[in-house]
């Protein structure tokens, strides 16, 4: 979707401002949000909930505010909790009540295990239609919902750099309706000067795309 999140190649942004010796979380609430996002089940569509943010809100809020928004939006949309429950809890916290504590040692072990090596899922799908070195064209009409194909590639021509084993097309997988559509996927190389008027010498942009994003040239 052509949301504000689809930033590649957009102009008008200023310098990249890097902070020295940056901590993983700048405030404790950021860590709590990260932890909740990874461990609490509030339904699918993590990224799509962020992508649907109103553009000015997207640009003027921080990364972990985006995550917070995503958990809230999905929890409400999937019927896990209501806006009223969030507001009531905020009222109690603002009045000085502490955040309740709940211990679940098994969940803590499982949470830590998410950040250790684990088996990969494998999927079967039709054989890949493209091979390394093939010229491919990105489809021009991209999904209006979630997609892993950046808008700047619409209709662009590239060359297959690598072919990967099948994976679910995430455009569909994240669409919240439970469908899984495994497909071959590819790393595709694009000469930047076929995408934009760019600095010289030109560079190469490489993007991982699924078969649904591509047609043979």
């Amino acid at each position, binding site marked *: 979707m052509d949301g504000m999140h689809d*930033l*590649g190649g957009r102009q008008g*942004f*200023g*310098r*990249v401002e890097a*902070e020295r010796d*940056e901590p*993983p979380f*700048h405030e404790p*609430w950021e*860590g*709590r*949000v990260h*932890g*909740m996002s990874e*461990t*609490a089940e509030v339904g699918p569509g993590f*990224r799509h909930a*962020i992508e649907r943010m109103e553009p000015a809100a997207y*640009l003027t809020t*921080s*990364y*972990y*505010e985006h995550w*917070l928004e995503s*958990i809230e939006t999905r929890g409400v949309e999937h019927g*896990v909790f209501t806006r009223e429950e*969030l507001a009531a*809890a*905020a009222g109690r916290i603002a009045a*000085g009540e*502490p*955040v309740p*504590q*709940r*211990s679940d*040692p098994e*969940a803590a072990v499982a*949470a830590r*295990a*998410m*950040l*250790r*090596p*684990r088996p*990969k899922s494998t999927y079967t799908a039709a054989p890949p239609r493209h091979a390394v070195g093939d010229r491919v064209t990105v489809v021009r009409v991209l999904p209006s919902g979630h997609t*892993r194909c*950046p808008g*700047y590639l619409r209709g662009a021509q590239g060359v297959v750099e690598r072919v990967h084993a099948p994976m679910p097309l*995430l455009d569909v997988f994240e669409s919240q309706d439970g469908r899984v559509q495994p497909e071959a*996927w590819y790393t595709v*190389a694009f000469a*930047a000067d076929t995408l934009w008027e760019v*600095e010289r*010498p030109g*560079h*190469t942009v490489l*993007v*991982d795309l699924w078969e649904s994003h591509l047609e043979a040239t």
Partner: protein
Amino acid sequence: MTEQHRHARPKSPQELRAAALETVLIEKGLASTDAIDALVDAFEQEIGPQNGARMVARAWVDPAYRERLLRDAAGAAAELGFGGAEGDHMRAVENTPDVHNVIVCTLCSCYPWPVLGIPPVWYKSPPYRARVVREPRAVLTEFGLELGPDVEVRVWDSSAELRYIVLPMRPEGTDGMSEEELAELVTRDCMIGVAVPRVGAAA
């Protein structure tokens, strides 16, 4: 560690929102304090660019490991105990005298957590995500990195499912160094591709 924080009144609207959300999730039995704590602790104490730096240093001293890293980065990470969420599928891309690699995620902020930790704010910021695919040399210059005109810049937009890490070139003047000393030269920025390792300049 957060006992203190969670009993203090929130200082910002974001902190209040996050505390309200945690309250609701805990009261509904959908979250547990210690699972959240476990993830926070993992990123604050254990997981960070020091993991990726160990892989890079190993690859510099062990040609067989370098081969495995370039063929299957997730497998090479697992050898050192690193892996999991946002790193189940990883790829290492190697800098050479002719090619310089840079990592970005234009659509989101995809990043190989198990080997680099939480991405820095600038990596997640609109200016970096918008600009580095279009004008990488201008962005690299802002980071103090000037590449020769004959070097091909490859920008990897990791918006799908594969997470990238740059394998930088081993700098000159490091012949006598141990693997541990080498790892200290490898900063987070070197593995994103906005810097290169320099002797005496490590973070």
